[in-house]
């Protein structure tokens, strides 16, 4: 797991990844993402930290995601996108609402992530729709998935219906509140703090996207399964052919 060291120099930009599942270009989904990015940048700036944003437009990876989803070869650009997410300090996810839920493409992307990619990751949940009747989509359909992934979605989700774009500052208070909650988690290095404290208590994917350090040091050779692998012996030093 690549995580920021708590003592990392304060001038290293925080890495925030924006995952947008919009389908048109430009899309209202991307417009909402941009509003949130602005809010996050301002909120983080008040802590005298800088932040670098990376965008992942899922439409550009649609075929790669579908192929990976059926167990076929995973493309290197999809791997790279997932690696970018794994190394982030925080993630902003924005999906349009199709048929009363996030899009299939959005879920398909989550489906091909290893379960440990978003462990303790601060996340802003956001969705766009053509009608305010879908306003609970971020809280009622997105939030449970991020709970499963043991991410840390901030308490305030952001939803934008078409009419919100015609009102003066209809979105800004919610965007700013979500951004403030997010900035507090990200600048406090909550993710790396929890991972360091809880190291070993999560099921991890060997050599997965969240495990790119290339070191064997984090493998626990004292786990029950590893001890069983080594003949069930209590001591790893014992030799079967002595």
């Amino acid at each position: 797991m690549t995580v920021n060291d708590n003592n990392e120099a304060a001038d290293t930009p925080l890495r925030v990844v924006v995952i947008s599942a919009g389908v048109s270009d430009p899309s209202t989904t991307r417009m909402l993402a941009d509003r949130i990015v602005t809010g996050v940048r301002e909120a983080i700036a008040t802590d005298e930290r800088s932040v670098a944003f990376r965008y992942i437009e899922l439409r550009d990876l649609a075929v790669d995601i579908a192929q990976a989803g059926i167990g076929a070869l995973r493309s290197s650009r999809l791997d790279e996108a997932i690696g970018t997410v794994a190394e982030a300090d925080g993630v902003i996810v924005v999906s349009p609402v199709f048929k009363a839920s996030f899009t299939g493409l959005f879920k398909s992307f989550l489906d091909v992530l290893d379960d440990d990619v978003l462990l303790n990751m601060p996340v802003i949940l956001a969705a766009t729709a053509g009608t305010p009747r879908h306003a609970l989509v971020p809280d009622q359909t997105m939030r449970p998935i991020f709970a499963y992934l043991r991410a840390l979605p901030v308490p305030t989700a952001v939803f934008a219906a078409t009419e919100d774009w015609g009102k003066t500052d209809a979105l800004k208070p919610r965007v700013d509140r979500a951004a403030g909650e997010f900035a507090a988690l990200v600048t406090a290095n909550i993710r790396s703090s929890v991972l360091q404290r809880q190291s070993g208590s999560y099921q991890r994917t060997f050599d997965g996207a969240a495990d790119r350090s290339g070191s064997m040091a984090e493998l626990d050779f004292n786990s029950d399964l590893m001890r069983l692998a080594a003949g069930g012996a209590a001591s790893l030093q014992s030799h079967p052919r002595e």
Partner: protein
Amino acid sequence: MQFGIFTVGDVTQDPTTGVTPSEAERIKAAVTIAKKVEEVGLDVYATGEHHNPPFYTSSPTTFLAYIAAQTERIMLSTSTTLITTNDPVRIAEEYAMLQHLADGRVDLMLGRGNTAPVYPWFGQDIRQSLPLALENYNLLHQLWHNDVVDFEGRFRTPLQGFTSTPRPLDDVPPFVWHGSIRTPEIAEQAAYYGDGFFANGIFWPMRHFQRLIELYRQRYAHYGHGTEDQAVVGVGSQIFVRPNSQDAISEFRPYFDNSPVYRGGPDLETVSEATPLFVGSPQQIIDRILELPEYFGNYQRQMFLIDHAGLPLKTVLEQLDVLGEQIVPVVRKELESRYGSHVPDAPTHASLVKAKYGDDEPRQPRPNPNRGDNVTGSSPYQDSDPGTPAVLPAL
């Protein structure tokens, strides 16, 4: 360096003719392919194991014993033997028997199996497949290395005073390879026992196995079996060859496009660029194989899949001709010259006997007499260790 053929054992419709071979035809074709492996000068033939259609390979030792009787030289192996749903006692008995009949030309590769319904058919649960595999192999190892075994584990009926018969040929068990895609515990088990590790690269990007093999090599050295580059690694690839590269691609494409594992994914060119599926002229395939040590290190066994997805027997035999005449001799010479003398060959029965006994005569276990109730009492063999007598279960 050993080169061989491994098969999944699928019975698949030929997409170019619409003809599905019968099980009878496919089994006879497999026999023809296995015998041809010896004829063209390759070293190993390995069969899969499945317990459901469309596969014919439910009984590997029966099949391999027949091949053993029809060949003189090749090693007979598996790809893979299910260490989860098979009783390790039956594996110990059947493969020891096969080893005797084949004069030692036997090793086996263990795998867990990922067909979920097979587990309950054999009284197991796929969700426990990893601890099941680890425990079963610990028992198998004991059964092959000890005349008398007492065992109690999570998954199997306990054993008391049990002797697996026949004892392995020359009291030297068949060499074992452990196959795994991404499970560090399997690499650890292979390393702990000084066994081989097999990376079936098919379907996976070339770099996929690097870290797992690195783990296996480090732990092999950690447990004192040798240096990291003396660890025993096998690699699986898939090939389709024709004299002309374009002919190879166009002839293979319908098999690729209709393959149960490749269809719906990226196209042939993309997969063959990214994974060890090599389709082309003999020289192109030689060049691609010679890239493999960059990803897998100095490995000692190279296996090829050539009869997948409905390819007809005639075509498979042509693949073997080209492998034996044009590809393997070149690759063998090049890789062996690269490796240097400190990288040992994969073990054979002869090398394992030599390692255990040196110039002494191998042990030949002779049972003690039947005491009248079909068992030999507390000492199964005339030379069994008196320090570990068999204590049979109370009736």
